[in-house]
Each structure stands twice: as structure tokens, then as C-alpha cells.
């Protein structure tokens, strides 16, 4: 059974989801859904339309910046709190408390601060992703086995070398899990930002399509985002499992 090719699981998943989708479509009908075949055709049409690409570019850019910001700040804060017990005791309850705030309630404040442009979306995406990345990184650094750090000291590693050669590689598997979760949440944040107040992007298109009841566009964009998120997530899970622990 272990000889199954690595693509068998994802393939079965795709077949299963498509089958459920087709059944739902047959039950619900044209009013709320399109069939898998129609959606794929509609997405192909959307991709061929030059008016679609600025929206895709806007979302990609906003998401890329948001993820970069979330990862950089999350890693920096996580490592700082991981190595400094006092800072961790002070900041951890605050981070957990902030994480539990429904972030959508902060969006009006972000809009006032950043305006309707790309910056508000980037900030909204980043605040979704950075806290889990920071918490996972902090935990990863905090739980590194002391004997590994002692070994580094015995080998006379300088503090930067200790960081690069021992702390980071030892914490990497858990940091990677945080990045994986941060990726999904940043994507959600960016799209939500576009849906509530924006003039471009996939979230904006989705909101417009909902208002105009363009089921084709709703389904096409949903499929596109789902394929992107699932593909990247599967890739990250695959890499995560390959890391030696």
C-alpha cells in the first residue's frame, strides 16, 4: 500500500470534490451554482479576457506583500520572544488576546489609516497572518532542546552562528507549520480586505458579481482561488513532511 504514487491522494481529492460539486449542482440548479465543466469553461474565458488581468495582478501583488510582511514580522517577533523569557511573559498574553479580536472590526480603522488603495489590503492581510507565524515561531524557539544550544556553546559558536546554525534549523519544522497557517490566513485577510472596500482585485470582482448575481464569475473566481490555495498548501505540507525532525 505504501507504493502508491504521491499524486494519488490529491487526485482522489479532486475527483471526490468534483463529484460532490456535480451532485450539488444537480440538486440546487442554475440559480446558485454552475457545474464543474461550465465553471472551468467560464474560468478559461475569464483568463482570456484582458480586463481580468489587472484584478489578478492587484490581488497577487497585495497578497505577496502581505505575506512577506506577515512572515518577516512574525519571524522577527517570534524569535525575539522565543529567546527572551521576560519579553515572552509580557507579550504572549497580548498577542493571544489580539488574535482573538475579530479582525474585520479593525478594517474601518485600517481604511482610515491607509485609504482605499493596495496598502489597506496589504495591512489587513498581514495582520491576519503575522500573529500565528509569531506564536508558532516563539514556541518553536522556546522548545528547542537545551542540549543543542549547550553543544553550540561548547563548539564556541558566536551568537549569530548559534542563531543560524542551531536555533533556526532546530526550530524550522515548527516555524514552517506556522508559515503554512500564516499563508492561508493572509490569503483570507487579503481577499476579505478587497471584498469590503476596494476598487480592484479578485475580492472586489467577487463582491460585484454577488451584487449583480453573476454566478459564472463567482464560481470561476472561487475555483481559481481554491486551486491556488490548495496547490500551495499541498506543496507546503509536502515540504513540511520532508524536513528532518
Amino acid at each position, binding site marked *: 500500500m505504501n507504493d502508491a504514487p504521491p499524486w494519488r491522494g490529491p487526485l482522489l481529492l479532486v475527483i471526490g470534490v468534483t463529484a460532490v460539486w456535480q451532485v450539488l449542482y444537480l440538486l440546487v440548479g442554475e440559480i446558485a451554482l454552475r457545474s464543474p465543466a461550465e465553471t472551468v469553461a467560464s474560468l478559461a474565458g475569464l483568463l482570456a479576457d484582458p480586463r481580468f488581468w489587472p484584478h489578478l495582478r492587484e490581488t497577487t501583488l497585495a497578497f505577496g506583500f502581505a505575506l512577506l510582511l506577515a512572515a518577516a514580522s512574525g519571524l522577527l517577533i517570534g524569535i525575539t520572544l522565543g529567546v527572551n523569557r521576560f519579553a515572552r511573559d509580557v507579550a504572549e498574553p497580548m498577542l493571544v488576546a489580539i488574535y482573538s479580536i475579530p479582525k474585520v472590526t479593525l478594517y474601518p480603522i485600517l481604511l482610515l489609516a491607509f485609504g482605499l488603495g493596495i496598502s489597506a489590503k496589504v495591512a489587513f492581510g498581514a495582520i491576519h497572518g503575522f500573529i500565528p507565524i509569531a506564536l508558532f515561531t516563539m514556541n518553536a524557539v522556546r522548545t528547542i532542546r537545551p542540549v543543542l544550544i549547550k*553543544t553550540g556553546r561548547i563548539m564556541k559558536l558566536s551568537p549569530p552562528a548559534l542563531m543560524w*546554525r*542551531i536555533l533556526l534549523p532546530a526550530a524550522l519544522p515548527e516555524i514552517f507549520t506556522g508559515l503554512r497557517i500564516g499563508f492561508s490566513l493572509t490569503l483570507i485577510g487579503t481577499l476579505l480586505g478587497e471584498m469590503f472596500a476596494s476598487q480592484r482585485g479578485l475580492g472586489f470582482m467577487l463582491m460585484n458579481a454577488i451584487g449583480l448575481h453573476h454566478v459564472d464569475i463567482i464560481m470561476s473566481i472561487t475555483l481559481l482561488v481554491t486551486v491556488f490555495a490548495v496547490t500551495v498548501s499541498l506543496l507546503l505540507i509536502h515540504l513540511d513532511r520532508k524536513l*528532518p525532525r
Partner: protein
Amino acid sequence: MHGPGRQGETHVRLEGVTKVFRGLGRGRPDVHALGPIDLDLAKGEFFAVVGPSGCGKSTLLEVLAGLATVTEGTATFEGRPIKGEVPDGVGVVFQEDACFPWLTVAENIGFGLRETSLPAGEVEARVRRAVATMGLDGFAGAYPSQLSGGMRQRVCIARTLVLQPRLILLDEPFGALDQQTRLLMGEELLKLWRETGATVFLITHALDEAAMLADRIGVMSARPGRLLEIIETGWPADRDSRIIEESAFGAITAKLWRHLRAESLKVLGKGTDAA
């Protein structure tokens, strides 16, 4: 008798070494963990320390390794004081698995060497020799998770030995291994000790291990750990695990236990009357 063994010259000196951990926070008392301890280790000597749990054995090793500072007294290695910084020429093997899981066996063994100014060719040659010496042939490219506990500990020993330390500190290095593996690893350790001529300071909870491996054995009291007695084993340098058949081996182990029984009962809160 050839090979190492005590060569007269003092290599490590402990004078009045005391360690007190200050109580952190209100109402928490200070903990007097160790000392005062006076001890001289001769160059090339194999010295073992036994003592009840929590008597400060590992703290003593950390003082020698420069990982902990003394509260009072002085510790010197090759005439230079050890002041909370790892001295040159000191290697440590811990009880816990200290292999880096993200590196292969060869990368683990060469880890410390790559921090030195040795040319890459020399690093590779030393790693290759260490892999062969420690019986890890065929596993150079394996990750620690693919090895048994004994093999992982051999990787850690090799990683220390390739640096050619003049003082090797071992903190219960075979504690997690089964009895047969421990005896065989002990033999390997004796062989490496003879080859390198290094001074070895071994902490162990296994009396038979101390009795088999060491030239001298220090028996520590319950906390605060002090040296109650130092027992000379009188073994030849070219010994191996077969000395456990000698009648003297039983006598040494019994003597160690006589001292330790009372101290271990103190740790358990039963006093010496329970004897």
C-alpha cells in the same frame, strides 16, 4: 603499563569550588548545590564521579566545561582559570541525544570542525576517520532519526573527539543505553582514551561503569555535593570490559555502594537509620 593513566602533571585543579543557586523571587531560598570541592586531575587520567541523584554532579561538569560559573573557589584547566567560558581543548558529551536532527552523520561529526580554521580537506579526512573508528561506516549520509540510540551517542562522541580535546567531559553518556551496549561502548571509550591520551572526567550513576572505566572514582555526598572519598581502582591502562570478572571489581563496586547507600537514603528522606 603503557598508554595514558596518571602522568603526574596536574591538568585540572578545583580549589574550594562552591556553587549556590540564588533563589529567584520573593521567599525562595538559595540552593547550595555543590561544594566546597578540592580535586586535582592528573594529565591523561580517567576520573569518574558517582553520587546520589541531585548531588550536583552535572553542575560540577558544567563548571569544568565553562557552562556555569562558581560562586566561590577556583577551577583551572592547564593552569588557566575557567570563568564561565568554554576553555580551548575541552570537549563534552551529554547524556541526552545531542545530534542535530537536520544534519547527516558526517555533517554532525564535522559540525565543530567547520567552525575552526582547518582546511576543508583536513576536515573531511578527520570526519572519514571518525566515521570508521566509531563503526559508523555506511551511515555517513544517514540522518540521526535513522539510527539507534547507541549509534546516535557514538556520533556525539565522534563529534567531540574529532576536535581532539585534551579534556573530555562525559555526563552519563551511556545512561540511555541497555547494559550490553553500555559495556561495549565503555570498551570503545577506553580504546579511544588510550589512543588520544586525553584526560577524561566521567559522570555516571552506574557503579559498575565507574568501577570498570576509571583510574580513580570520586564518591559524592547528597546535596550540597562534596567529595566523600576517592577510590583508586588500580586497573592497567589496557583494560576492557572483561575486568568485571576480577574479584577486585566486585570489591570496588561494593565499596562504592557502601558509601552511596547512606547518601541515597538521605536523598530519599529516610536517613541512615533505615539501614
